[in-house]
């Protein structure tokens, strides 16, 4: 199947990112934009802009009819959803395919399977992916939850089957709390996700977040290495790196090969990320969830593989087959990604919309900037606060840290507050330099939360 015109159903830096690769592939691009985004940097770069609704995402970027309507009205024959918004909406993926267009992503069935966190966990187990001790699938009302909880061991967590991304999780420290917490968790899950089913899983206190990038064509699946995204705040990644530091080779080999098996088991096509928690004490890695889309932090993988992941993603959707084999993938050096958000770290990370009066990006060897804004851009209050990503490569991790501090020092943004001081402070910590930090590091280090510029 071939196509010529791509609808970019997203905004900000990822819309810019997709438009760039589409242009290199000779594709025309249509940006589906909300009213305030019709004059954005992404809109300037796109060949055409189709306004899909007012500012509120629910009436524009999340409005499947409006987005689909924009694609058909402009004669697009493919849709790239980016990340967030409709990217993991199986119904939308199906509607795009039913309308005769190519969906740049996995089949709707794979999105559905991985969207149900208890089914996903079961699939991971079936594929030989290591999982933490837990209930096998969702707890049904006639399951003896207390007996299963005893087997899993306390402390444990109750997770919503329809949750994910850190949402819908409750801690249970002992058997006396189990019944009441299960009740609350089911009610919350029903309210938040419209699905009351929950499952139990072992609790890990100080773990690292490690993930594997896979790429498949429904039959063949390869890995593009691993990343570490342990530097998080409120379950949101702040800094990511590739490859994951301090991972024993046996653990790395296990998560890479079993992620491929999971991809094969669900006939995975396109880019996907298998996420793990790694416990550095016990040297155990275990499955958290799989994201069935392009990931925000994909550039660190691009820097160490020399590949354009968006290009491979589009080509596999178009051609239906991978043009790369595992032997084609080689790794070189170390990369970091820093998320620059319009938030004020001196004021509890209060969102900081405004107009960018000055914007000077760093340069020099090994520096890449993926930005959704330019000097003069208006940072609207309506959407995610991510302005841009600074990506830094060097041959060794310690050199990449040195180069990153140099690059962050050159970055000047005026007109809005940004998380730049947090990024600099994080990178200066010995825990981070020695790769001894867990996912709780930023939030449990008060010095980092009150950083001043």
């Amino acid at each position, binding site marked *: 199947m071939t196509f010529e015109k791509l609808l970019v159903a997203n905004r900000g830096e990822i819309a810019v990112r997709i438009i760039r690769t589409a242009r290199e592939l000779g594709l025309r691009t249509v940006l589906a934009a909300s009213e305030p985004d019709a004059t954005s940097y992404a809109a300037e770069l796109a060949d055409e802009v189709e306004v899909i609704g007012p500012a509120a995402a*629910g009436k524009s970027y999340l409005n499947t009819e409006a987005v689909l309507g924009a694609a058909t009205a402009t004669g697009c024959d493919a849709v790239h959803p980016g990340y967030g918004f409709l990217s993991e909406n199986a119904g939308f993926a199906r509607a795009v395919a039913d309308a005769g267009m190519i969906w740049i992503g996995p089949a709707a069935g794979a999105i559905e399977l991985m969207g149900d966190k208890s089914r996903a966990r079961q699939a991971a187990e079936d594929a030989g992916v290591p999982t933490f001790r837990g209930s096998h699938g969702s707890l049904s009302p006639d399951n003896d939850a207390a007996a299963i909880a005893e087997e899993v061991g306390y402390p444990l967590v109750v997770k919503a089957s329809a949750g994910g991304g850190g949402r819908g999780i409750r801690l249970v420290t002992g058997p006396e709390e189990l019944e009441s917490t299960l009740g609350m968790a089911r009610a919350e899950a029903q309210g938040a996700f419209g699905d009351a089913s929950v499952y139990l899983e072992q609790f890990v206190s100080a773990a690292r977040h490690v993930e594997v990038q896979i790429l498949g064509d429904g039959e063949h699946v390869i890995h593009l290495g691993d990343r570490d995204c342990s530097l998080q705040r409120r379950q949101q990644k702040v800094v990511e790196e590739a490859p994951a530091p301090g991972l024993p080779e046996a653990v790395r080999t296990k998560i890479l090969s079993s992620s491929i098996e999971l991809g094969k088991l669900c006939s995975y096509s396109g880019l996907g990320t298998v996420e793990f928690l790694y416990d550095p004490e016990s040297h155990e890695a275990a499955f958290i969830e799989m994201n069935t889309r392009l990931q925000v932090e994909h550039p660190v993988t691009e820097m160490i593989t020399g590949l354009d992941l968006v290009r491979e993603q589009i080509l596999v959707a178009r051609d239906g087959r991978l043009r790369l084999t595992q032997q084609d993938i080689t790794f070189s050096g170390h990369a970091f990604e820093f998320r620059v958000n319009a938030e004020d770290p001196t004021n509890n990370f209060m*969102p900081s919309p405004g107009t960018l009066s000055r914007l000077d990006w760093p340069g020099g060897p090994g520096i890449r900037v993926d930005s959704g804004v330019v000097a003069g851009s208006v940072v609207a209050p309506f*959407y995610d606060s991510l302005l841009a990503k600074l990506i830094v490569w060097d041959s060794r991790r310690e050199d990449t840290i040195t180069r990153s501090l140099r690059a962050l020092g050159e970055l000047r943004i005026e007109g809005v507050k940004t998380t730049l001081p947090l990024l600099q402070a994080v990178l200066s910590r010995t825990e981070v330099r020695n790769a001894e930090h867990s996912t709780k590091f930023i939030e449990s280090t008060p010095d980092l939360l009150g950083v001043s510029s």
Partner: protein
Amino acid sequence: MADIISPLPGIFYRKPAPDKEPFASEGDRIEAGQAIGMVEIMKQFSEVRSEVSGTLERFAVEDAGAVNPGDVIAVVAEQ
């Protein structure tokens, strides 16, 4: 009459979630400190409260409408 002003830029919502009942409706009795909606700024939500007690006369912003700081969101007849 007392105006309820948006302290923030963002999107004003009358319901805590799309499938939930609105915080308040026109004609409702409102107590001082009661939430009448919320404003979303960059995925963070803040409740918007009435400083006075009275009757909610009208909303000046539609549900899921964009607001700027200082915009009148609703008008309350003090009682």
